[in-house]
């Protein structure tokens, strides 16, 4: 077994693990904000792992895998932020008592 096969397997397990974790968080976490933490970022890392697997096993895909990984890393936080922001504007309550945005919100929109 070549070295990159071993690395690829590691990357595969890595990717699958974080994908799994992200989904677990998506199911378990108490409110939408927490779930975004889980799935939005963790699943991203899972994807990066799978992309690494691909790059290792099929070198011709490496550059595109890199491009995809970069793209996901750049956009994923933005999507998370946008969803969280939308949830807050829709009035989805946060789980927890500390909310420094409460009250400020009215000044921000409308």
């Amino acid at each position, binding site marked *: 077994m070549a070295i990159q096969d071993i690395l690829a397997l590691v990357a595969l397990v890595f990717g699958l693990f974080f994908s799994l*974790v992200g989904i677990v968080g998506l199911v378990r976490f108490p409110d939408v904000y927490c779930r975004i933490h889980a799935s939005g970022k963790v699943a991203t890392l899972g994807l990066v792992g799978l992309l690494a697997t691909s790059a290792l096993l099929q070198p011709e895909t490496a550059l595109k895998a890199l491009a995809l990984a970069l793209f996901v890393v750049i956009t994923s*936080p933005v999507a998370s932020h946008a969803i969280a922001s939308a949830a807050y504007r829709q009035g989805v309550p946060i789980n927890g008592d500390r909310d*420094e945005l409460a009250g400020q919100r009215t*000044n921000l929109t409308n």
Partner: protein
Amino acid sequence: MLFYLLVSLGFAVVWMIVTGQFNPGGFAVGWMISIGLLLVVRPHPRVIRASHLPRQMAATVIYILVLFRDIVLSSVDVARRALSRDMRLQPGIIAVPTQDPQRREIVTALSAHNITITPGEMVVDFDTENSVMYVHCLDVRQSIPIAEAAQSRRLRLLLNLLGDRS
């Protein structure tokens, strides 16, 4: 001019990655296409001093490494919580000042991006007037103490990256 040169070079690199042609030919084609694209789109130029370039480059590399480390750390952190039985969550939203004296949008954006990627924190909203980011944390006990310090660290890196600190 330097700005356009840098941007076109950057685009050329992106081109090479996207097309999978990581070779001189790919670079040449990508560069030409980038120049053509810039001629059409004409983004607003930013002043760049040649003398600061090397340091900016270095900062960029460091930034990317830090970013990657942050992603991994954050993911591991969240994974721990997700898989643990009681999840040990104490969510909440805290206000974090952006601290950029010039209040530039790019700085705010990159800070927010970075924060959202870091462990258990995520920007929910901005108060542009007061340069405040409202950050949702999975665990406020853990985040509050380090929030401002982390932000000033990030800001330093960013300013370096943007070539502002002379």
